[in-house]
């Protein structure tokens, strides 16, 4: 049997592009060729932002997404897509599959008739490209920055003029100074946009998104039509995909940062007191959002409790830096 899957990414984009194809290969292999999934790139059937609706209605049986894309319809997607000062990738992985995360999220997808399988764990993004130095939280005041989601809301509280510049205009806007700063993705993807040619400061850490999830979404009727074996295979294929992609991403970031540095960019960290200042605002934003949606609240509370609990393990195991 064969099914169409549309990704929200172009298939040639590094890492996240080929990810659903690798998953499809695994599913085909593990089902002995019984289930074949034809992977299509961004825009082939619908524009990226419409993939969820199309899977929900059944017009397309499957999709591959960045979970945060669906925040306008499913509030909790904003949290899973990018939680400021959220979990590191290993903690995110533990919470999702072993700490009850997936069950909470699936509740938000159920009313839309969509099955979600987290399938690609994204490493922390960069903190962003800034054409001036950030030394205190005051430096955010009046800064024109392209940053989406909860991170954008956080910086807006610090007085930044945060806005959504379409991907195609970010480079020009940075080059001409129409915007002063942007975050986009991890170094591996940022490199392709050529920001290193026009901006001098590349900041870390990616406080707005210490980890993130891409997922396979499947129309619930299609999902229910699969045998239990096939369903299990699809989940296991995702876990294999996550393991492969984590290694692949780490491998690529180091290389990308080296190239960016060679282009004459200062690769640096936000000062700790700046990060503490942002964190305070981020927690206020998260609490506000939790007040608006019960599933967001449940996931937020579960995840922060989980981070606290395993936090001790990390602290116990921490080895001082060289």
């Amino acid at each position, binding site marked *: 049997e064969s099914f169409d899957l549309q990704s929200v990414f172009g298939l040639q984009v590094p890492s996240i592009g080929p990810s659903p194809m690798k998953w499809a290969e695994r599913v085909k292999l593990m089902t002995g060729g019984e289930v074949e999934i034809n992977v299509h790139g961004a825009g082939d*059937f*619908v*524009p990226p932002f*419409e993939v969820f609706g199309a899977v929900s209605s059944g017009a397309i049986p499957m999709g591959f997404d960045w979970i945060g894309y669906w925040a306008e319809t499913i509030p909790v997607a904003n949290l899973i897509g990018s939680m400021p000062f959220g979990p590191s990738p290993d903690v995110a992985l533990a919470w999702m599959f072993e700490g009850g995360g997936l069950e909470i999220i699936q509740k938000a997808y159920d009313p839309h008739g969509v099955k979600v399988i987290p399938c690609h764990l994204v490493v922390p993004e960069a903190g962003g490209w800034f054409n001036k130095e950030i030394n205190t939280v005051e430096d955010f005041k009046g800064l024109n920055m392209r940053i989406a989601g909860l991170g954008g809301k956080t910086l807006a509280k610090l007085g930044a003029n945060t806005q959504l510049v379409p991907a195609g205009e970010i480079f*020009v*806007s940075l*080059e001409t*100074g*129409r915007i002063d700063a942007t975050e986009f993705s991890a170094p591996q993807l940022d490199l392709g946009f050529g920001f290193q040619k026009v901006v001098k400061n590349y900041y870390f850490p990616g406080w707005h998104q210490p980890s993130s999830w891409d997922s396979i979404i499947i129309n619930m009727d299609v999902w229910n039509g699969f045998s239990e074996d096939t369903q299990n295979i699809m989940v296991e294929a995702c876990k294999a995909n996550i393991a492969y992609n984590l290694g692949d991403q780490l491998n690529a970031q180091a290389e990308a940062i080296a190239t960016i540095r060679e282009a004459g960019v200062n690769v640096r960290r936000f000062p700790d007191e700046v990060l503490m200042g942002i964190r305070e605002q981020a927690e206020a934003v998260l609490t506000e959002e939790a007040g608006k949606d019960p599933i967001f609240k449940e996931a937020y509370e579960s995840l922060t409790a989980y981070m606290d609990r395993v936090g001790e393990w990390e602290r116990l195991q921490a080895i001082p830096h060289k």
Partner: protein
Amino acid sequence: MNDAYFWPILMLVGLMAGIFTGYPVAFVLAGIGLIFAFLGDVPVLFLSLGVSRIYSGILTNWLLIAIPLFVFMGLMLERSGVAQRLLRSLASVFRGLPGGYAFAVAIIGVVMAASTGIIGASVVLMGMMALPTMLKNGYDARISTGLIASSGTLGILIPPSIMLIVLGDQMRVSVGDLFMGAVGPGLLLGGLYLAYLIFVAIFQPHRMPAAPAEDNTEPLWRVAFALIRDLLAPIALIAAVLGTIVTGIATPTESAAIGAAGAMLLALLSGKLSLSVFADALRDTTKTTAMIIFVMIGATIFSVIFRKLGGDQMIVDAFALHGDNPYAVLLTIMLLVFVLGFFLEWVEITLVVVPIVAPIVAGLDFGMTPEQTLIWFAIALSVNLQTSFLTPPFGYALFYLRGIAPEGVSISTIYRGIIPFVVLQLLALTMVVLWPQITLWLPAYLSN
């Protein structure tokens, strides 16, 4: 022939037939799409994707807000008489010469191209401004329409340009470098058009008669003075549009609003702006914008069903290239893009073809760095894609021009008028391919 190509090919044939019934292209595209969805047994639910594509792909595309703004700017320039005055005084500089008006149009075409990034608006503006006057002065309708369509299309190549932004995004090369790289080829094309006009003026002067004698009596200093005076307003406007982009005050899209506000101000100052003229301009802005966008709406319906029935596979297979001579591979790609350009829109070609061919080209050795190769290839591709606006049966520039041309200018006149200009574009493409320096000198010069 492969059986899998049955539906896509039949669909293209059906589209041709539909277009030639004379029914509006936008609705034929959508209608043929739906008919074939039915014939090809596509699940009915799949059609719901049409709504998603219209909403998310077109209506919410913030970049497109530049279209009504540029259209409105053009209408204001036209209704205020600013553009005609410039055209007239430019033309009177070439007074007594056959083709004077045509030179003026070509020059204005380049100037307009530097201030807008989209094609529809500049063709429409030039068509409304210059075409009636050219015809009234006894110009051959073919050369008039050909010149307006092709010099109006320069806007997609000369920066700012939406096409270069999309290409940069797709190929992951710097949009700034692409903008700079396109300047040389854009000016080259403008120069070729002028050279051709001079050729026609010398050998076939009856096709572009000199302006009537009574216009020729003014002394030259007064003509020059008038030109400078009439240039002030448009130059101020271009300075405002380009200037706000270059200084970082506005993005290319936002600059369209600055241009629109500026043109409205000029119209107010000219004293020709009555309420009814203004209301008229707003209504025309609505209809022209809708006309341009509805073709995109029709195309998006057609293409999703074309894909579903295997059309994209057909195109991918066409690119299953082989051969070890890099220029042979390049020639094949360029030929295929040119042929696809007869039928598809540049967005479709860019989105389907570029991801497939860019890695192939980046891996070929043309004696340049991979980055230089990609910039050069992207610009050559842009010149080629620009031609797709002009090649029948689907030349969007031709459709837009037909949409606003006076009664009596048929689409077949326009089809025939465009031929010499398409030949010139192919010549420019060949030069851009053979001499990469045409593209690369400016980015290289600026980065030093």
